């Protein structure tokens, strides 16, 4: 009995190829471990080690007033989980000395007669001096300190009518606790998918070229397009496992909500995976060796994903040419889709443009890849 109908032949070719591909992946345990372990490691590193939140920062106080109000304020700051009082200073000069030693990050200066001013003139001044050699930390610390002082002021003046006040009330929509996870989970997703799909497909196809097995396949009746698709399937499945791992970890461990539709989120992720796969195929068509394939994937895709997708640095602040480059990187579109669906909980009607761009990119890369693949035959 032979498989004779065109469909069953296609089927047997396709499954024989996919099976072989799974053997490759399964038998290369170290690569498999990296592929599946990477998302876990990244979520843990970004979730627990790399955070913009500052805790228990050491601060110094120059209290020239030494009254009830300043004492209360200092105690309150010391008691908060953001600050630890490390030193009481006696002169301005000491502030810079402390900063130079690097022992404190922030100094709080109370002028003489702080409480009196506050009670009688309804107006008192506090000076916050921050070590801005690290601007991000300085900014965060002064914000925290202002908030603590603001809270205190509200309590003191709460029972009194002030003639004219404008109180600003801030609400941080979608991320009230300003958790870093909201920013990096979508970034990690983009990074992991790109790495698994683009780099691994590029490398494995180039490997077949190097080994000479690709030639055997081109001589066989298996169509080149089928080779391309069969190569992509195992990595698509691996990516679906990775997407699940990331979402489960971020939901249960990092307590990040999934406000939008899960189906939409997974669907968009699969679309992005397909874009990455097509890119990998395209790279493999151009690269001559496995190393070349790896370097092209890393430099052309990985770096723009990290630097320009908005995951690490806001795109809005970049010079125009960089913003254009960022728009070319598929990851930046996916990043904004994931943020919209996961955090803001919006539906397809609001992200159809991004989705369309990704779909267009996929078609473009795939057509180019298959075309380049065919040219090798001529």
């Amino acid at each position, binding site marked *: *009995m*032979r*498989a004779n109908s065109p469909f*069953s*032949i*296609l089927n*047997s*070719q396709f*499954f*024989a*190829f996919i*099976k*072989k591909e799974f*053997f*490759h992946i399964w*038998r*290369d345990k170290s690569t498999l471990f990296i592929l599946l372990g990477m998302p876990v490691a990244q979520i843990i590193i970004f979730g627990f080690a790399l955070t913009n939140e500052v805790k228990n920062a050491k601060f110094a106080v120059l209290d020239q007033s030494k009254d009830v109000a300043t004492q209360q304020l200092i105690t309150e700051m010391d008691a908060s989980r953001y600050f630890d009082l490390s030193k009481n200073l006696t002169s301005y000069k000491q502030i810079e000395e402390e900063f130079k030693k690097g022992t404190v990050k922030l100094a709080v200066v109370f002028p003489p007669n702080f409480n009196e001013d506050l009670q009688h003139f309804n107006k008192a001044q506090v000076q916050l001096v921050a070590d801005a050699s690290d601007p991000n930390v300085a900014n965060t610390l002064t914000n925290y300190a202002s908030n603590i002082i603001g809270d205190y002021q509200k309590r003191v003046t709460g029972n009194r009518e002030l003639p004219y006040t404008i109180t600003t009330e801030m609400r941080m929509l979608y991320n009230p606790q300003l958790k870093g996870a909201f920013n990096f989970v979508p970034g990690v997703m983009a990074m992991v998918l790109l790495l698994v799909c683009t780099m691994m497909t590029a490398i494995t196809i180039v490997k077949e070229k190097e*080994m*000479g*097995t690709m*030639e*055997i*396949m*081109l*001589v*066989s*009746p*298996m169509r080149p397009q089928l080779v391309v698709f069969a190569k992509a399937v195992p990595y698509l499945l691996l990516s679906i496992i990775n997407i699940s791992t990331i979402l489960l970890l971020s939901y249960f461990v990092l307590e990040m909500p999934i406000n939008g539709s899960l189906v939409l989120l997974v669907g968009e992720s699969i679309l992005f995976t397909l874009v990455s796969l097509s890119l990998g195929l395209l790279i493999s068509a151009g690269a001559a060796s496995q190393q070349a394939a790896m370097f092209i994937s890393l430099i052309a895709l990985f770096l723009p994903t990290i630097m320009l997708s908005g995951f690490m640095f806001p795109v809005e602040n970049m010079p125009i040419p960089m913003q254009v480059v960022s728009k070319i990187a598929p990851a930046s579109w996916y990043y904004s889709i994931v943020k919209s669906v996961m955090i803001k909980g919006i539906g397809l009607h609001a992200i159809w443009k991004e989705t369309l761009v990704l779909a267009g990119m996929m078609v473009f890369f795939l057509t180019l890849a298959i075309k380049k693949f065919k040219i090798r*035959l*001529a």
Partner: protein
Amino acid sequence: MPADKVILVEGLTKRFGDFTAVDHISFEVSRGEIFGFLGANGAGKTTAMRMLCGLSMPSSGKARVAGFDIYKENEKIKKNIGYMSQKFSLYDDLTVKENMRFYGGIYGKSDVFIKDKTKTILEQLHLTAEGDKLVGSLPLGWKQKLAFSVAIFHEPEIVFLDEPTGGVDPVTRREFWNLIYEASASGITVFVTTHYMDEAEYCKRVSIMVDGRIDALDTPANLKLILGAESMDEVFLKLARKATRVES
């Protein structure tokens, strides 16, 4: 067209820009024949072979392989030929049986066919005990014989061998040629390129390519007679010395 001519080539040419790699070659190969395709490095034999296998598009000329036109019926040709390249082309991280399963699969063969054929080949090669071992763990000589068996796994009409015995010891080469004889006896046409002149003696007919053209084509015995040479080595040297093309 005579039915027993499985390869018919007429004026086949391949140009890369100004360079003519294969220059109007013409020959015929009969069914079941072992046809030696000789030539120095850069003489154009690999390019000619790649055109016949459908890996490379000819610039001009005509050719039919297994009864099909190489321009229009490429897909049909692919089903009826086997190919073994200079590079060892089995997967080291797959077992012997898995490799056969894979190559049988991409030729669209049924599970039953693959199972039977795998058993037959393993018995023929005395490798039944090694069926579940990774190919990477086998000695090179075994791998080479295995690669040949896999190239004719789907029972093609013609098998193209591109320097199949490179880097193999003389004993294994002899065994390898026994496999080629067996294949030929079962009706498979063997088209083989080689550097080894003792192997040329094993062929029924040989062609010798010089500078992209076929300079001589006959049985080894006739070639020696015509050129007044003692051995195929001498035949080859006499012809190849005329080459003006510098190996790049």
